[in-house]
């Protein structure tokens, strides 16, 4: 049967079903196939908050969204164009996210009475009935479960086992619709089921049945092509933010020649960094699951005292607990990498949802004047560079560094043109040397105000340090009034001066002056970038500045800001970077804020920016 082929430049597909339906698996396999089709892409998994909620219920719905295209893709997409739902609950939970004119592929067998009830539809109501007549959507009802059973009828497998392959059916169908090569899926199934040839073949058969269903059924009239994107040449892989964070620290360990000690305590959404690093023992990485967050950061401080890279990761509640120890690290002036994968607070909040509300805590979440460098990652793959740079600065400046990530980029994936070891910057640890004849002074500093790292085991550098205020140079305990003031200023200036060695302020897009300057930070980068690019394309005088280092900030911000009529700071909090910019530079920045545990949509950003310009 000949099908209509339509060319698109981008598409957003959302797969949704029960946790047990294998949604994440088809999401990631479709992503790989899409990457191999050379599209740019961004993905986001949407796990249920419960570990394993009862099958068929709303809390049990698992989702996976992929945005891909022949154009540059910076987000997993606002709303989706295609919604695949394996059961009634999945439809209920996701229908609001489908754009007008969108396609629904629904598994008919997931809309039986039992499933409708589990999804809390009133008895007698089947939402597909309404949708059938709804001109806003194109509905395809497919008896996926049944067709899967048919495809496997000769195998003699149990129903449970048979039904487990139904995700392959939809994967095959979608591959047909978007013209994806399925080789990588075959390879994946080979890796996964190589030892069980029957299961392997069964999955292949269902995959092909799905593909053939598209090809042969009259119902499926349209097929789409998306041209390859113009992506920089090179070797790519797909990566989540958490995996990239782990790799970034590992890379810094290799480049500095220092072992990595990662002391942590599990917490959503940061735990995967531990899981990943635990696999790198052969590279000398020590992971330590401590009894709590305080012990986690303290063990890292101990390791760093010993001359290793001490690192720790957590989310908000853990950061709270680490605050006293981070203050100690500020006083000790020792390397320490602290990663905060932010989630929606306050308190336990919504652990599986994203937010950017720990920025001010990073600045001020310790008693006393205790400054430290703060850097934020802006996308899944950028977590690599950010973790690498955070570690480099921690080592070279002998300071704790906070790296901010968030649940959104931590779990999201994107294609990554990864670097080779040779391309990475060198990292030089400022180890103390024995000075002949002279006494070693642990708080003597170089021109960057950095003290030297004296490691136990080195003769003649024996010294005692701690959390009490210390005398300049000698590091002896001091209660002297002027010395305290001096030390407070030194600790401040040491952090401020890092800006001297960082690139000055640079726009991400737009002209050097105009109507609106948008200043963003962290994981909102993709959406804000896209919104700004689109407004620029519409001819608006919008420019975009994205801050990577929050402390110290790059030089030149007030000068730049003064060339714009309006400054807006979009944040997933109530206005934290905004308040810093206002206080630091007295610039009349206003905020665009969303605190819903969800990323910005490009549309809401564009709307807000337009309103600003017209103000």
């Amino acid at each position: 049967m000949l099908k209509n082929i339509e060319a698109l430049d981008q598409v957003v597909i959302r797969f949704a079903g029960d946790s047990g339906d294998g949604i994440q698996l088809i999401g990631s396999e479709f992503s790989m196939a899409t990457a191999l089709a050379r599209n740019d892409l961004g993905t986001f998994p949407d796990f249920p908050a419960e570990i394993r909620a009862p099958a068929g219920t709303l809390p049990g719905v698992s989702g996976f969204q992929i945005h891909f295209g022949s154009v540059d893709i910076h987000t997993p997409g606002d709303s989706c164009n295609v919604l695949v739902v394996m059961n009634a609950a999945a439809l209920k939970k996701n229908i609001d996210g489908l754009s007008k004119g969108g396609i629904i592929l629904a598994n008919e067998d997931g809309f039986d009475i039992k499933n409708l009830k589990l999804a809390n539809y009133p008895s007698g109501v089947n939402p597909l009935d309404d949708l059938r007549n709804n001109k806003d959507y194109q509905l395809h009802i497919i008896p996926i479960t049944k067709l899967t059973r048919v495809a496997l009828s000769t195998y003699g497998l149990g129903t449970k086992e048979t039904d487990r392959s139904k995700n392959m059916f939809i994967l095959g169908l979608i591959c047909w619709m978007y013209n994806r090569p399925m080789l990588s899926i075959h390879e994946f199934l080979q890796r996964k089921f190589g030892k069980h040839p029957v299961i392997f073949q069964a999955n292949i058969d269902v995959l092909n049945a799905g593909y053939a269903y598209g090809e042969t059924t009259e119902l499926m009239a349209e097929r789409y092509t998306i041209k390859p994107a113009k992506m920089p040449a090179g070797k790519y892989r797909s990566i989540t933010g958490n995996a990239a964070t782990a790799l970034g620290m590992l890379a810094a360990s290799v480049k500095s020649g220092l072992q990595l000690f990662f002391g942590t305590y599990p917490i959503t959404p940061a735990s995967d960094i531990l899981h990943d690093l635990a696999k790198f023992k052969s590279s000398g990485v020590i992971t330590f699951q401590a009894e709590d967050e305080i012990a986690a950061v303290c063990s890292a401080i101990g390791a760093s005292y010993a001359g290793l890279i001490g690192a720790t990761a957590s989310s908000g509640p853990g950061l709270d607990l680490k605050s006293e120890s981070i203050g100690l690290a500020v006083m000790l002036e020792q390397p320490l990498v602290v990663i905060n994968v932010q989630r929606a607070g306050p308190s336990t909040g919504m652990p599986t949802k994203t937010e950017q509300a720990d920025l001010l805590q990073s600045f001020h979440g310790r008693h006393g004047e205790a400054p430290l460098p703060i850097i934020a990652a802006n996308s899944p793959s950028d977590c690599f560079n950010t973790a690498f740079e955070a570690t480099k600065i921690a080592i070279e400046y002998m300071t704790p560094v906070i790296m901010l990530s968030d649940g959104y980029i931590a779990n999201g994936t994107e294609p990554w043109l990864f670097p080779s070891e040779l391309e990475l910057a060198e990292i030089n640890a400022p180890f103390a040397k024995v000075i002949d004849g002279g006494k070693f002074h642990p708080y003597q500093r170089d021109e960057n105000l950095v003290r030297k790292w004296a490691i136990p085991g080195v003769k003649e550098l024996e010294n005692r340090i701690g959390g009490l205020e210390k005398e300049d140079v000698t590091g002896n305990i001091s209660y002297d009034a002027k010395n305290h003031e001096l030390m407070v200023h030194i600790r401040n200036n040491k952090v401020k001066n890092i800006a001297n060695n960082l690139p000055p302020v640079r726009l991400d897009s737009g002209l050097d002056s105009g109507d609106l300057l948008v200043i963003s930070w962290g994981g909102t980068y993709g959406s804000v970038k896209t919104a700004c690019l689109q407004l620029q394309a519409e001819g608006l005088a919008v420019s975009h500045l994205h801050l990577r280092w929050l402390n110290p900030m790059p030089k030149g911000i007030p000068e730049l800001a003064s060339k714009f009529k309006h400054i807006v700071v979009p944040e997933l909090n109530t206005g934290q970077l905004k308040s810093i910019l206002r206080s630091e530079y007295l610039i009349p920045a206003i905020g665009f804020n969303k605190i819903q545990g969800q990323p910005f949509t490009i549309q809401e950003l564009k709307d807000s920016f337009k309103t600003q310009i017209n103000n």
Partner: protein
Amino acid sequence: MTDTVAQHIDYKHALPAEVFTAKDLVTDQDVRWCPGCGDYSILKQVQTIVPQLNLHKEKIVFVSGIGCSSRFPYYMNTYGLHSIHGRASAIATGLKVANPDLSVWVITGDGDALSIGGNHYIHLLRRNVDVNLLLFNNQIYGLTKGQYSPTSVEGQVTKSTPMGSLDHPFNPAALSLGADASYFARSMDRDPKHLQTTLLSSAKHKGTSVLEIYQNCNVFNDGAFFIYTDKETKALEAIFVEDGKPLIFGENNTKGIRLNAQGKAEIVSLEETSINDLWIHDVKNIDKAMILSRFYDDPSDENHLPRPFGVFYDVERPSYDDQVQFQLQIANATKVPTLDEIIAGNNTWTIE
């Protein structure tokens, strides 16, 4: 595998430890404890025994929390880290695991270790990290000027308990054994000989060794332990246990301790009972060590058991830091991927 610290710094592994003396361990900082404080004696005994351990001085690290006792590292001319309240055990864990070649000592008080630091304390013990922990127990918060601590006796009147403390105190021996300590010993500031011997024994233990030291705070809790050292009371109140020896105490060693069929200890007179029927101390027997830890009665109770001093328990089990190294080695024994290989992962594609 990235270099270990050992490769970075010239450890001179092969060389024997250079000889140094107690004097080499004195720093240029004035000792700031109250005149008469028991901490002075402990410092002295530590400085005396450390040179006997055949260590490289530069490989020794003293880690402490906060408290009078925790000032200790400033007075030891080794590496030293005066950290924050309660966290010395956690820091020492990271330190020792990072570099198992170091001799790591944790200096902590009854408040520092058992109040705010209680969690790290019990986890240190179960993991059996190879550090020497000296618990300066003065049954009071010294540095904050005299509030009761988790080891203060019930009814103790302190600044925070004008009507007497209501808290049932920890029994540090029982708590430590309950947390699976592989070594527990008790000594006192005012018995320098015993303290030195016990310090040496603790230092030699592989795994976490806890040495509880009864320490007099002459300002806020003077005389809390004098019955164990005063001539008139010592013989009846204190019992010094030694591995393989029967439990004997009292004036002229006329009393002994026997374990009855119910697993209960009872005091017997050696005039009536043969030495052969006495409890023979066995530092490898956890059950006996636990019962011994319960010799913790209020000395004013009639028929109370004497308070034991010496090594209660001393067994070997794998230390956490060793095991970490062992796993690293196993992992390292197979083909080690390069950084480039790790970064690339299993699934790459190329855009030309």
